[in-house]
């Protein structure tokens, strides 16, 4: 074992006594093996499979008698989930809550996912919300925000943000933001940037006023990603955007990238430094290509290659000194 070698060496160099070495060796042998993250992953996978399967079953049995059973079991499961979470709730605080067990967290998640499935069912079957689709999507958003703050649950917070975004009409999920959204066709670029900015602002507020500062990561990572992505894609479109002229987009991208770097320095978070630098780099590179549009042939190619080499070296130097840069706050 590696730890045995290390202990031998420490003993040899006189940094630990023989007795102490033996005690640590004993602990290394008897230390229990933690299945914490494996069990959490199993719970999450189980909940996803269960709610997904129930959702499909509900649709398949929409017209026969069997669907009553499915609805009933889903409602019971949902109430069980919410009830279990409520029974194990901790007193409310603006700080992060520490719990001994992770099961209530997942019970809450199960309840929320089933709530979505049941709400959709009620709309499909009984047309509960009529044509007020906005109400149908804003309701889960409000409920999930309340639950997220009350139960201190970042997963439910992410679901609330997703529901809010679907109310606005865009998908905010980090990967599908790259694939699903056609900001250009629906003119949603402005809305996406607005929502992204709002979420980022809420995140900054949470961080500064210590209103659940650990939520800031979720707000800012989802919000800033959405805003920057929508703004960048507006930058690359050929057709002019009514709400996002390029003369506004460029300063917006610069300011947003800059504030991400500022936030990265504040929280010493390398993710936001990376995001800020990457989007900033894309913007600057785009502008350079615009300027070079008239220059053709070998001179243009040489300038581009020189730019890539030198700028990349510059960014690498910035990153290598990133630790110093982040600590100097």
């Amino acid at each position: 074992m590696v730890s045995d070698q290390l202990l031998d060496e420490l003993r040899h160099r006189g940094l630990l006594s023989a007795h102490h070495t033996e005690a640590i060796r004993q602990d290394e042998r008897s230390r229990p093996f933690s299945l914490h993250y494996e069990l959490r992953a199993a719970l999450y996978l189980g909940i996803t499979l269960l709610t997904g399967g129930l959702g499909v079953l509900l649709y398949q049995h929409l017209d026969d008698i069997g669907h009553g059973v499915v609805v009933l079991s889903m409602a019971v499961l949902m109430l069980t989930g919410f009830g279990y979470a409520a029974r194990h709730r901790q007193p409310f605080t603006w700080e992060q809550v520490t719990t001994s067990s992770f099961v209530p967290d997942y019970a809450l998640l199960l309840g929320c996912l089933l709530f979505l499935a049941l709400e959709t069912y009620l709309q499909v079957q009984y047309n509960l919300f009529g044509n007020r689709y906005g109400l149908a999507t804003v309701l889960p958003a409000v409920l999930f925000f309340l639950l997220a703050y009350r139960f201190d649950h970042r997963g439910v917070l992410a679901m609330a943000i997703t529901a809010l975004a679907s109310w606005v009409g865009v998908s905010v999920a980090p990967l599908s933001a790259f694939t699903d959204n056609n900001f250009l066709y629906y003119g949603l670029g402005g809305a996406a940037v607005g929502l992204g900015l709002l979420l980022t602002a809420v995140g900054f507020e949470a961080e500064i006023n210590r209103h659940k500062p650990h939520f800031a990561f979720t707000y800012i990572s989802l919000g800033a990603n959405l805003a920057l992505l929508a703004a960048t894609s507006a930058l690359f479109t050929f057709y002019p955007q009514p709400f996002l002229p390029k003369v506004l987009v460029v300063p917006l991208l610069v300011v947003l990238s800059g504030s991400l770097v500022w936030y990265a320095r504040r929280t010493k978070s390398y993710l936001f430094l990376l995001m800020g630098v990457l989007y900033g780099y894309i913007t600057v590179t785009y502008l350079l290509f615009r300027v070079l549009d008239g220059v053709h042939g070998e001179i243009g190619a040489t300038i581009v290659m020189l730019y890539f080499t030198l700028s990349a070296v510059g960014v690498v130097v910035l990153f290598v000194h990133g630790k110093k840069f982040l600590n100097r706050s």
Partner: protein
Amino acid sequence: MNLKAYNPAWAQHEAMHAATARWFRRGLLTSEQQQAIQTAYPLDFYRPGLFLRIGLFIFAYIGASGMVGLLAVITSFDHLESLAFIAAIGTWLALEFFIRSSRLYHAGADNALLYMALGWAALWLTAVLDDVLPSISSSSLLSSIQTTLLLGPLFLLGLLATIRFADRVVAFATYCLLLLLITIWLLQLPFGRLVLPFILMAVSAGAYQLVALLSKRPDYTYYQRCLVVLKVLSLSSLYLAGNYYVVREGNAVLGGDYLSAQIPSAPVFYLLTALVPLLYIRVGLRHPSRVWLLTGLAAAAFSLFTLRHYRAVLPTEIAAVLFGLLLILLAVWAARYLRPTRHGLTSLAQDEQPPLFNLESLIVAETAVVPTAPEPTFQFGGGHSGGAGADGTY
């Protein structure tokens, strides 16, 4: 020249820091003792956090590509082979230089330069072989001597690079190249296809034995990260070589059939598909070893997929509901049963490093499907308007 590119003491010191931090969290060391040990084993190399490493990787890649592009542009790009050769040598020298000068140690930038150097070398080899040997038709690609002539040197190159740089991705690719070479050689023999699964399993088992032996050596801390990857990989290839789906479909691909047919000695593979994951999980829990446990769980998932691929026991949605319910109940039971500790296992978070950032909330945002507002003209009620997992993509 030293065989190892990085200072071997760095690996040793890093392991010492991780161990003492763990012992300190478990209350086995006082903070003065931890301080004393950590000053005796200083971390005098450069490796930032994950995201900075990603950034360094991306921008080192852009920078090195820009350099090669610049060379190509100013020499008007007239000879690909020479360019690839110069790029490979140049990138490698730059890599060695930056490791010396900036004390990079698996810091992102050095990974990028290493992969680029190997990529250019592979391109150069391919181009040279293409010039020297008569061109081959793509249908005989697998069995040709050219393939061996290309893959053989690539394997040796990967092996040398792994010995020198102890990089996980290179180790991964090198092991895959080895398996590929063995497969190609075996397929030349008359009974090759029949014994291929068993030979690959034997090779994997041998590789695991070798890796397990090597990781016990005190002077191999330098390779610890590679050896873990190779353990997972050899266990995976041992399982996959005996998996019914892989054997049957692989057989069909090698035979050039469009539909796979039943394979010889199928019961052996049924048994292997069913039992190997259970064995891995058992060893993983008993030993205990996360490598065996997680590989076993992944193998079990693939075995379930294999079963469902050939025999759909239940409709997908019912299977999902039942299996989901089973997983939840099992996890909740285990979480309570293993608190605080039974059979040397616990469900409490241990002294392992807490997750770097809240990955979970991003996964939830990605997988949870929220009903989206349809277009105003669209009547709510169609099958495709979504709902939690209703589109079957859960």
